[in-house]
């Protein structure tokens, strides 16, 4: 009970802005596929094209055998879609929201309770509460329940974790993994790069094009170049101070509690000496510079820098 999605050189323009530039990719049946990219990279537009809410200016999209333009009614029957802003009725209770979404897909909460049990159980104690009074994490779970209620074969989630706390984000991804085991194809977009490693495969998008398309592991493997991480006593000003080092340093970006930098062909010792000198003169102590293992964020930032 899952479908594949084939996107063939899809194009979409909004007035003068090219939202998608001849984008092609295939998503396998039962895959948990992630779209990563900053705001404005075309993720939402792509999802709206797949759900047939928009019509492409060129190319086509197939969901299984169905064409997104001509067979849109069929596609809508088998697709569960969770738009970027959780589309819930704030003045309706949790239960009323679910019942409503069930009924517009010609089903009932009772009949399909087993489908959403895992998600819904967590918010069921609050089922009489108005959706507007829920926390971000609970809203997200309710929206997911609403998108799952009609037993979709394809689940499309547009930035489901945006604006949700870290614990809820983690729980949410665990739920997605569970869903995937029931055989649903899941497309999920996120601006958080750390979530990429939880997908089977990811597409890195920027300005309507694909920068990379592979499994998270392979993307990390392909990373070439050296990566250093450093920390000091004064992390507040470290990025500003580093940017004045200049020679040899290519990229500087904050990574968790540390700072990652890349260089142009310097080895560890050379980097160390350049940086330590500079930072010491700016009043930093406890300067630690060491080689770092690249994470998926590093790969993305590197790729985005190249383009």
């Amino acid at each position, binding site marked *: 009970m899952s479908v594949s999605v084939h996107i063939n050189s899809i194009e979409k323009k909004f007035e003068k802005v090219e939202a998608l530039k001849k984008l092609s990719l295939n998503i396998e049946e039962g895959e948990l596929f992630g779209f990563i990219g900053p705001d404005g990279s075309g993720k939402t537009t792509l999802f709206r094209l797949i759900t047939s809410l*928009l*019509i492409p200016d060129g190319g086509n999209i197939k969901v299984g055998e169905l064409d997104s333009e001509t067979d849109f009614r069929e596609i809508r*029957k088998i697709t569960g879609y969770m738009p*970027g802003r959780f*589309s819930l009725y*704030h*003045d309706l209770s949790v239960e009323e929201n679910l019942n*409503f979404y069930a009924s*517009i897909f010609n089903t009932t909460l009772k009949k399909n309770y087993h489908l959403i049990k895992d998600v819904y159980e967590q918010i069921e104690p609050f089922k009489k509460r108005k959706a507007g009074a829920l926390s971000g994490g609970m809203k997200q779970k309710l929206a997911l329940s609403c*998108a799952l209620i009609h037993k979709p074969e394809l689940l499309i989630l547009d930035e489901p974790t945006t604006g949700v706390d870290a614990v809820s984000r983690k729980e949410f991804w665990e739920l997605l993994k569970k869903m995937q085991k029931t055989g649903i194809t899941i497309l999920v977009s996120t601006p958080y790069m750390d979530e990429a490693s939880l997908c089977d495969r990811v597409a890195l998008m920027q300005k309507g094009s694909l920068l990379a398309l592979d499994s998270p592991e392979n993307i990390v493997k392909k990373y070439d170049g050296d990566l250093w991480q450093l920390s000091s006593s004064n992390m507040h000003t470290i990025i500003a101070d580093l940017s004045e080092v200049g020679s040899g340093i290519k990229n500087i970006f904050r990574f968790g509690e540390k700072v990652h930098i890349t260089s142009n062909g310097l080895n560890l010792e050379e980097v160390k000496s350049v940086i330590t000198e500079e930072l010491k003169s700016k009043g930093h102590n406890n300067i630690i510079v060491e080689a770092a293992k690249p994470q998926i964020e590093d790969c993305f930032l590197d790729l985005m820098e190249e383009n």
Partner: protein
Amino acid sequence: MWAFIKKEFFHIFRDIRSMVILFGMPIAQVLLFGFAITTDIKDVNIAILDNSKDNITMELSNKLVSSGYFILNDNLKSNDQIEAAFKRGDIKEVVIFENDFAKKLKKEGKANVQLILDASEPNTANMISAYTSGIINTYSLELMKKSFKMPVSIITDTKMLYNPELKSVYMFVPGVITIILMLVSAMMTSISITREKEVGTMEAILVSPLRPIQIILGKVAPYVILSFINLIVILLLAKFVFAMPMYGSLILLLLESILFIVMALALGILISAISKSQQQAMMLSMFGLLLPTILLSGFIFPIENMPLPLQWVSHIMPSKWFIIILKNIMLKGVGMAYFWKETLILFLMTTFFIVMSVKKFKLRLE
């Protein structure tokens, strides 16, 4: 569909603002137009300066005071007191009879009355002077028949502006019905549809297998019911609070109203299709529907007195035709034979707007 309608009712009943607009507004409007913004006058304080003090001026003063429109507040002694009387602020009019009023009337066949009015409220002043003149004119006709048997005239400065028998509430009720139905049907539906667009729930509904007609019906059905309830409330108020007559067929009136409601709903859907936010929908319905309904439908300002281009514009106002139909049924008590043309025009407009709105309502986001 049923779930959709139920959901829509939840939205309405849980939102205090909608409830106020839906149920407070009609009642407030009818009462406002009926009582406060009335153009009838009643119990106006006046003063009389009688320089003649003869039997005719006495009788005329009595006529004025006993008419029910005026209360004699003060009897002035001289011209000097007039200004002071107005400045006290409780009188609106001073009636001045000239010297030797009765004598002049007998000798010359005419005598003068001067009316001085507080024109700080021009409309009221106009009306008061019209009522006063009316009473004086009636009296002079009586005099002519009874006592003098020859033409006499009491000359006043003002002319009779309109028929004092005209009760304004009769004119307002059809207008208020029209405004309320327009407001509830068109504005509320357009706002509720654009709200779904704004909140993003429309996106989720659109990706469902529902057909456009199902979505539209689900959204508008509650408003048909509520508009209808409003109509009945207004009719009851008109009947029991203002004793407004209802000469024609009630069933015909309700059927014509349903036609108008459907027209207004279609307009509402059309507005929601072209506006992107609730605010825009509200502005469009306010300035595109409500104001023209109030100003150009003949509800307050007679269409015959408008400049020609505005008269043409008034023809495309559905409310104009609906008000004609309502007045015909309620006040004249005539049947379909007298307003089939207006009904046909309304029907064609309704069909046009329905076709337009279904066409404009898209199952996609652009």
